[in-house]
């Protein structure tokens, strides 16, 4: 999956994605509007919802319009849609603040901050989500291909004699009950056969002939199958972390870009510096844990990558909180307390996003290569299996051609003729007796074939 496919795919404008973004953006708006003197406590919430609805409408509608012309939306269009949404979010936030609270709307600041946040966060989140979804599909397809390969290999390893025996039993199971039933029906009513009965017998016999022919026909090619089910969420993310320092750098950058500007605007420069320092130390701690485990206990990282990653993120959050509340950079602790929830959420979301983006891209490339190899092997094995199957069916078809299929065809023709013609008694008796004799011969020869004749 290329970057363009990931960013221009369905997740670029997916409604579910926008719903998932509602809680963190609402929290961000609540922090930002702490200093806005709204007349009621719920106005910041209303502002957050209004902003999100406008953003959602722009992104979903923009994505739908762009997708009419492009299956994969070009990157420039995707970024234009996201930027437009960020601009409108700033305008809506400023307008509500001005109208309701009577303050300076600060359009430029609001638009600038939302554009920065969008450009830093949205590509990473959309890319990670697209890779995650792609991984679930890849793993599902890989499981399906592996199972198919095992099944086909078992068929190939089966001996010709075994396969021949299976085919003969399948044919006998298919034909014998109907043959017996038809014989009994014909015997029971041989002296009083009307045209409708004969036509019905003819139809049943004709179906029997076709079913046997289908069973002996060359095997069909690979069946068209439904898309394999996607792998579970848990399995899709069950991977050890990679490139810990790059991960730490990106997590730090994303978190700082989201929190520090508002901390500066609301609480002043010291609060912003405290955010930068706390986040930097937290990401260094997180990266150090992952790098150390990877260097000294690579097996542990491979086996328990998820748990170690969660532990490293938790350590990062704890370090950030401690520093925000105790570093002394910003002497007003209450300001740190207000910023901490947003910082923690930003850190977690950034970590999950960056970890996923980095790990999944590599893992998907490996899974796609493996899927290609398994599919190629499956094609070869299927071809071999098909050739063997065709050979065995051909052998049996040769054996059954005259004694079974030919006689059944003759019976069908005779019953058809009988059901559509005015026959005298002698002709009718001749045909009925001949059909009965043929069916008995078919049953006898079918038994012989099943018991091993011509093996």
């Amino acid at each position: 999956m290329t970057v363009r496919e990931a960013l221009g795919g369905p997740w670029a404008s997916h409604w579910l994605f926008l719903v998932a973004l509602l809680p963190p953006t609402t929290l961000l708006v609540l922090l930002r509007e702490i200093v806005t003197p709204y007349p009621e406590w719920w106005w910041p919430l209303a502002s957050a919802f209004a902003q999100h609805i406008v953003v959602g409408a722009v992104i979903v509608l923009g994505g739908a319009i762009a997708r009419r012309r492009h299956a994969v939306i070009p990157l420039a269009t995707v970024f234009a849609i996201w930027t437009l949404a960020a601009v409108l979010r700033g305008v809506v936030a400023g307008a509500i603040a001005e109208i309701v609270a009577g303050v300076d709307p600060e359009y430029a600041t609001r638009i600038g901050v939302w554009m920065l946040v969008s450009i830093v966060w949205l590509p990473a989140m959309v890319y990670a989500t697209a890779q995650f979804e792609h991984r679930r599909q890849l793993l599902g397809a890989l499981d399906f291909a592996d199972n198919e390969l095992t099944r086909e290999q078992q068929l190939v390893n089966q001996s010709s004699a075994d396969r021949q025996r299976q085919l003969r039993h399948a044919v006998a199971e298919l034909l014998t009950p109907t043959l017996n039933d038809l014989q009994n029906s014909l015997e029971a009513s041989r002296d009083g056969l009307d045209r409708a009965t004969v036509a019905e017998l003819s139809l049943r016999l004709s179906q029997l002939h076709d079913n046997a022919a289908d069973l002996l026909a060359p095997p069909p090619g690979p069946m068209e199958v439904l898309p394999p089910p996607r792998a579970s969420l848990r399995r899709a993310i069950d991977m050890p972390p990679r490139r810990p320092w790059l991960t730490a750098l990106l997590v730090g950058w994303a978190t700082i870009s989201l929190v520090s500007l508002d901390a500066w605007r609301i609480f002043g420069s010291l609060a912003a510096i405290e955010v930068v320092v706390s986040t930097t130390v937290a990401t260094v701690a997180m990266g150090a844990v992952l790098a150390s485990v990877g260097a000294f206990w690579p097996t542990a990282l491979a086996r328990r990558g998820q748990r170690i990653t969660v532990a490293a993120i938790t350590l990062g959050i704890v370090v950030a909180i401690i520093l925000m509340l105790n570093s002394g950079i910003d002497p007003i602790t209450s300001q740190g307390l207000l910023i901490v929830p947003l910082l923690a959420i930003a850190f977690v979301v950034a970590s999950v996003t960056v970890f996923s983006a980095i790990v999944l891209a590599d893992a998907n490339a490996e899974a796609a290569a493996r899927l290609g190899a398994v599919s190629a092997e499956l094609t070869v094995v299927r071809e071999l299996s098909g050739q063997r199957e065709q050979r065995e069916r051909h052998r049996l078809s040769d054996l059954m051609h005259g004694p079974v299929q030919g006689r059944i065809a003759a019976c069908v023709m005779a019953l058809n003729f009988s059901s559509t013609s005015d026959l005298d008694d002698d002709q009718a008796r001749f045909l009925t007796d001949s059909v009965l004799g043929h069916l008995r011969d078919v049953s006898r020869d079918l038994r012989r074939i099943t018991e091993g004749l011509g093996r």
Partner: protein
Amino acid sequence: MATPEVSLGSVLIADDDSLVRGVLRMALTRAGYTVVVACDATEALVAQVAYSPELVILDINMPGGTLHDTLGSLRERQPELRVLVLSGESEPPVDLTGPACDFARKPIDLDDLLGRVELLLSHTTSHR
């Protein structure tokens, strides 16, 4: 070997299945054709010499000779002979060549068979 009756055209039925021979004979006779039957390739060649049929309905798998050999011998004596090959196979044999040949799969609907016979024989008439 049965004696033909005077009628629209003469048809030789060569099939080793007595029921097929019987049914085809009844159907063609009722439709107005002269019918002669043979149960193997040798009989078919003898019947051809005796009755010079205009059309032969030939089963692919018969005792006494392969389709290729039987058809070759029949055509050697009677190059304009019309041929309708009946078989349980779904595909016509590759060596089914020559003028006015047709192939049908068993079990064939008898109306369909009569239509094919009529068509082949009209072909014969127009080539005369």
